[in-house]
């Protein structure tokens, strides 16, 4: 945990200063997770605010401080899911539009200046946005946590509160669905280099 157990208990008793400490400790991580899930930088702060407001009002319900982090991530996932469901995010990229982006990705090593790098990153974000728009919001969130954030199965089990086998099945199915879309988008010919270790 990034905070002392005592701080958490104080916040549970309604100490606003202690709650501010939690906010300071976890803000950056929560922003990161939300940003990767929703892929809309301009809306990250709104969703993060919702997460912390929900945390404030439900903190007293937390029985064991040991599960605080998975619980906070569950709140984050739920708020992100609500955002996605409201349809604020729009992925209006027809697959054909990716030809240019694919070229950029494939040509990742060609450009070394900042402009090229920014374009490459944008292409990756757009491609992921399109890929995730092809699967359900649940799959999107699960895959982001596992594949993008690199969370372990154990962490995901705690966040989702499911057993290992159920989680593995969900992950496998989500992965199959997104891979199908990936192949459709031309993933077979895709080469993502530019600093990807082991590529």
């Amino acid at each position: 945990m990034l905070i002392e157990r005592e701080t958490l208990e104080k916040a549970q008793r309604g100490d606003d200063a202690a709650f501010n400490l939690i906010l300071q400790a976890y803000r950056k991580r929560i922003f990161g997770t939300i940003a990767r899930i929703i892929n809309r930088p301009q809306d990250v702060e709104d969703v993060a605010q919702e997460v912390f407001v929900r945390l404030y009002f439900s903190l007293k319900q937390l029985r064991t401080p040991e599960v605080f982090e998975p619980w906070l991530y569950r709140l984050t996932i739920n708020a992100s899911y609500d955002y996605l469901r409201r349809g604020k995010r729009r992925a209006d990229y027809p697959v054909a539009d990716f030809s240019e982006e694919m070229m950029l990705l494939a040509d990742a090593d060609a450009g070394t200046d900042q402009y090229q790098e920014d374009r490459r990153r944008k292409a990756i974000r757009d491609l992921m946005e399109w890929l995730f728009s092809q699967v359900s919001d649940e799959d999107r969130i699960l895959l982001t946590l596992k594949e993008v954030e690199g969370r372990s199965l154990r962490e995901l089990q705690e966040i989702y509160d499911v057993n290992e086998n159920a989680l593995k099945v969900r992950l496998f199915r989500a992965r199959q669905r997104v891979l199908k879309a990936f192949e459709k988008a031309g993933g077979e010919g895709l080469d993502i280099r530019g600093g990807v270790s082991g590529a």
Partner: protein
Amino acid sequence: MANFDGQLEQTEQRFSRLCRAYGRSAVIPEASVNFSANMWEAIEARRSSRLFGMVAKLVTTSALAATILFGTLPTSKAPAVEPEYLTLYIDHSQAPVQTEIFSSILDAEDSK
């Protein structure tokens, strides 16, 4: 078959690399200077609305409980009291006029 499996594995590896690249490419904004202040404002606003909601719920529940209570209470009926009239108005009006008193007055006048 082995070729197909190999191709699938390659696709999976490429997808994994894409995910990792996306993790590094994601734009993670810094919190604005007003983030904390805005959050506390939102907390206050929600606290007020929750309080209002609780009061409204309490009032509604109380009203409902009172309605049910009064609805199920046995209604106590006061015993019907029959009015006791000596005579009815009609009986009284149809009765012969008591003229004795007038006769005696008239007799007294005549004797004068």
